[in-house]
């Protein structure tokens, strides 16, 4: 079962195959929990959200579309949305400051494969591209893209006009989009 593709496991999971479900959860639980924990910073809540993310994946497996990314990406988006919903009751000031997210910082050296907790090389282009994104733009993108802030909330959090918040988001995203296109072109 461990050799099964992610999509095959998802199909088995979708119909309630216990073996497929156990393998599916085991394969992705660290990733799902990592997203929930990063956003909520509450281990117990993160575990509850991770469980809920898997249950939602089971219920809505037919919404998975491989043209938009892999199963893991789909799961992390589900988890992120659940975590953001859970945090909506909290003041925005309670959210983690993007500057505290060490994983956003450019690597000081080549990552040690034995120590790295990042899953694949698929996002390496993004890590490299973020090096060239100014801090204030990176903060705006993370607040919006990871922590679920609207542009207005980014503006309030950063104490800047909303036009400035939007500009930061758009400039950063434009750079990242170009970097992604260049990476795709060289593959």
């Amino acid at each position, binding site marked *: 079962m461990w050799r099964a593709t992610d*999509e*095959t496991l998802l*199909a*088995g999971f*979708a*119909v*309630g*195959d*216990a*073996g*497929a*479900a*156990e393998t599916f*959860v085991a394969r992705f*639980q*660290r990733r*799902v*929990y*990592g*997203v929930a*924990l*990063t956003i909520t910073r509450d*281990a117990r809540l*993160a*575990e509850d959200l991770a*469980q809920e993310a*898997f249950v939602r994946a089971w219920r809505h*497996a*037919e919404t*998975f*579309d491989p043209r*938009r*990314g892999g199963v893991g*990406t789909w799961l*992390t*988006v589900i988890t*992120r949305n659940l975590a953001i919903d859970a945090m909506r009751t909290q003041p925005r000031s309670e959210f983690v400051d993007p500057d505290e997210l060490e*994983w956003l910082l450019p690597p000081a050296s080549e990552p040690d494969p034995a120590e790295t907790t*990042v*899953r*694949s090389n*698929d*996002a390496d282009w*993004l890590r490299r591209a973020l090096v060239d994104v100014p801090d204030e733009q990176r903060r705006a993108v*993370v607040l*919006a*893209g*990871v922590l679920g*802030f*609207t*542009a207005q909330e980014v503006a309030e959090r950063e104490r800047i006009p909303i036009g400035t918040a939007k500009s930061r*988001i*758009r400039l*950063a*995203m*434009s750079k*990242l*989009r170009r970097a*992604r*296109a260049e990476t795709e072109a060289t593959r």
Partner: protein
Amino acid sequence: MSATSCDTVRESAPDFALGALTGRERAEVVAHLDDCPACQALVGEYASVADSLLELIPEAEPTAELAPPVLAAMRPSPRPRWRHRLVALAAAAIIAITGATGLTVALVTRDDGGTSSSAAPPLRSAPMVGSGDLTVGRVVTTSNRPPTLAVSVDYWLPDGSYQVAASDRAGEAAPVGTLDVTDGRGTWTGRAAQLGHPVAVELVDQSGHVVCRGRLAWPPDARSQSPMGQSGSA
């Protein structure tokens, strides 16, 4: 076509992809995207970038295994005993009326096509329908090559072993595995080696009778009949 221009949507595309727009702004973009493939493509590129941000988040080890509570949530809630009895009586009556040889006539009178989107979804599903139009389970298949079939039943079928048979649109049918039902439930996951996209999946009992069937609808472009490797698991 919506009142929002392409220029406006292109400007908002990064915010849209990140989910940073207000509800009204988002609705305007969505309305425009319905009619504009070019802006759809641009938003898709930004959405891929936004999704990639989550790829950077480091993994973490939960303190407890997540599988047990997930599996518990997947179990159907117990049905009232009166419903079991009612269904059993109805099934007995249907069997008595149709007789063993006429059983298959009553099969497959419903097909919901089981899709979430009109655009070639990766997974397709259909109810497994038994005698008396009774839904006894579900079949799901993937659109990859070779496709995986997953069948589950959780209602009405007597305990025992059932042959899983699949057929494609060319009419070819083949046994692909065995599904064991215990305490009224059973699952099987595997692949149909000799067939193209499966359009019907049946469970056949020890007497050779088809006890339920699922019909899978495929879009017109899914017509490959390529040979497939075989694997399966109970």
